């Protein structure tokens, strides 16, 4: 449970940090690097979310479909 909730705050933290890095990189004039940072942060977060959704679907399948 506590581990679960940590994941949400991890995702939010990654989002805020990526946004900060993006701002700094843009002000340094490296727009392409900022794009890459955003993309990689997004992929990491998407992977975490996909793992969780897989967990949820597996549980729902247990409850509803395979009685």
């Amino acid at each position: 449970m506590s581990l679960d909730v940590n994941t949400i705050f991890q995702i939010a933290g990654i989002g805020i940090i990526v946004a900060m890095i993006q701002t700094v990189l843009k002000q340094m004039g490296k727009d392409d690097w900022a794009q890459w940072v955003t993309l990689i942060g997004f992929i990491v977060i998407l992977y975490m979310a996909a793992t969780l959704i897989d967990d949820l679907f597996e549980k729902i399948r247990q409850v509803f479909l395979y009685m």
Partner: protein
Amino acid sequence: MDILQIVGLGLAVTFLALILKEKNQVFALIVSLVAGVFILLMMVDQIRLVMDMLNNMAQNAHLNNVYVATILKIIGIAYISEFGAQIAKDAGQNSIAGKIELAGKLIILVMAIPILTAIVDTVMHLMPQMGGG
């Protein structure tokens, strides 16, 4: 005290998503999606209790197992398609949400075909008896 945890989590995530939204919209969306997944994961255990109760009642009443399984599947499909449609609506993709709901409705209709057939069969069996009796 599950409800306090869930409401607290929901409020925290709401404000986090509000902060994230002005920096990066996608991250805010994923945070709210994960929060929704967590709340559902917490609720799955309660749903399992209700489903067990329904199952027991159906077995005590000697109902046909196929119909009960179909009804449980239909409830599950309704929950999942509602969840997906709301996520899509959150992201502003109303048309995708509509398509998800449409698919859910259609699949529920297809799953209900055996039940409908059984009803029609029953009525057809009753008809000659009533006519001849």
